């Protein structure tokens, strides 16, 4: 469903250009669990952002479910992000003035979902992540693990096909990190395509497929099992 061909991403830095990604060819089928690994600055986040339509490649074609995404308008790309993709970030990126429930509700507000339905879905999502006691809490009143669980609830509330996680455990201690990974793997078990950037080799080993980036190129890919 995800097909990248000859993807290139260049950043002009000063007078020079940095090749964040060069000649990336890569396909992911529905329901895969992919760990993206590699040294710092190798282009992992850039790759994930392009797949999540937050960034556009300078060259190459990215088609998602047969749709050439480079042809889409800003509105159409936003609609794909809203309905098909869920992001989980290293720094959670919860909105500090909103409660846990309101943060989770946000994608549905953007989508124009009916308020009554929003409420029940938020309740359901938060309780399934063991956060029903924390609904009214603001992010600064939550622990790191709780925050990331709220963020995952937000990423999945629109029932996306793909979840993209950029170092989701990078800011967590080991036990809450494991908890978060289990939640993500559980999503994958239910058919969601999971792509996760990680520095942790142990976490990488849990994935069914590992892709290694070095200097913006794919240096190793265990391939689909």
């Amino acid at each position, binding site marked *: 469903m995800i097909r990248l061909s000859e993807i290139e991403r260049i950043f002009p830095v000063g007078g020079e250009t940095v090749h964040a990604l060069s000649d990336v060819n890569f396909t992911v089928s529905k329901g895969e669990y992919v760990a993206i690994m590699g040294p710092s600055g190798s282009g992992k986040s850039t790759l994930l952002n392009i797949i*999540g339509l*937050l960034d556009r490649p300078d060259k190459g074609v990215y088609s998602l479910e047969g749709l050439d995404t480079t042809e889409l308008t800003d509105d159409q790309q936003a*609609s794909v992000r809203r309905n098909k993709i869920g992001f989980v970030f290293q720094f959670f990126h919860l909105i500090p003035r909103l409660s846990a429930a309101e943060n989770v509700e946000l994608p549905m*507000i953007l989508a124009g979902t009916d308020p009554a339905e929003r409420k029940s879905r938020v309740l359901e999502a938060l309780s399934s992540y063991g956060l029903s006691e924390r609904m009214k809490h603001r992010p600064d009143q939550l622990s790191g693990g709780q925050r990331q669980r709220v963020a995952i609830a937000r990423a999945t509330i629109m029932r996306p096909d793909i979840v993209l996680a950029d170092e989701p455990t990078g800011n967590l201690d080991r036990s809450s990190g494991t908890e978060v990974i289990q939640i993500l793997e559980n999503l994958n078990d239910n058919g969601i395509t999971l792509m996760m950037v990680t520095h942790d080799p142990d976490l990488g080993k849990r994935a069914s497929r590992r892709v290694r980036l070095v200097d913006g190129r794919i240096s190793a890919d265990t391939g689909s099992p």
Partner: protein
Amino acid sequence: MKVRDIVQYSAKALSGYSVRTLLMILAMAIGVASVIVLTALGEGARVFVTREFSSLGTYILIVLPGRSETTGGPPPLLGETPRELTLEDALFLARNSVVRRVAPITVGSAPVSWKHREREVTILGSTESLFDIRQLTMAQGRFLPAGDPTRGSGVCVLGHKLKTEIFGNQSPLGEWVRIGERRFRIIGVLAKKGQSLGLDMGDVAIVPVASAQALFNTSGLFRVLVQANGRDAIQKAKKTILNTIRKRHEGEDDVTVITQDALLSTFDRILLAMTLSVAGIAAISLSVAGILIMNVMLIAVSQRTTEVGLLRAIGAPSRQILRLFLAESAILSLIGAAFGIMLAFLGTWAISRGYPEFPVTVPAWALGAAVFVALLTGLIFGVLPAKRAARLDPVQALSRR
């Protein structure tokens, strides 16, 4: 995204920064209030002047001796004085069919004395017609009697204030007062009517026009008030007056006729223009509020960069970001406008308490215009920050912590 949700989201964002939000609302409120209060003052001035003119009576034309400078024509030769407007001229005007009444007026100043009391006041020489034309009312007695205006008689009518100052609470009817070198019997006292066109009708003594002319040793009139037969007759009466006087004055156009309507509409226009320009100046204070809104929204955008990035990541198109930030500016302006209206009513209330005779009214259009201008200001000055937010690159926005 539903409108209700946009409003709710923006309102929540605003309440998150309460001090800053309150400052902006205050600035907007002051701007809106000053527009409304100044408009109300201008409107009050207009109503005030209109009221003054209507107290002159209805369908009135004023005939003055001398040519008005604005009518053009050759300038008068050196040393030429305008021909006098005489009592005969005035009486001649009364014969015309479009003219209902004519009140010739002579004005002078003379001491009025009774026993040991004496006061210098304005002496008004006129006829019984003045009573109807100026829509006077009597407190006591009666007004000047009808009769041949060219024959002066020794009667007079006192203004309310003059009567009180000389006679106190006593009835003056039938008493004789001395005005200048002549004696007059008091036949009436005017009711309080207040001021009209700068002449305090309470502080005058009214005598028959011929008596006044004798008193001041003049044959000319100060002016002639002509009442036309109706509103439609006013223009016709003006022409007739000019024609009649030209014939009697050997072809010279040496009087000026002012119609009350023309005077009123001129004043009306001038005062409306004044009101609008004053309101315009006040609107500048709104733009100060606008610039404040712009600055604060720019700060808000830079503080909420990650929030914008996140909204993009969870599926908001950049148009939506624009709308969200514009909604914040609009909400600020509207709340500011609402407080401004309250402030304005407080202000006009205070003014009307301080100056009860001055009519301060807030015109409905001023309210609408103030709210509209406030909203417009908020949106115009909100566009730049909102555009900046909408243009943010989501990846960079999110990479900042």
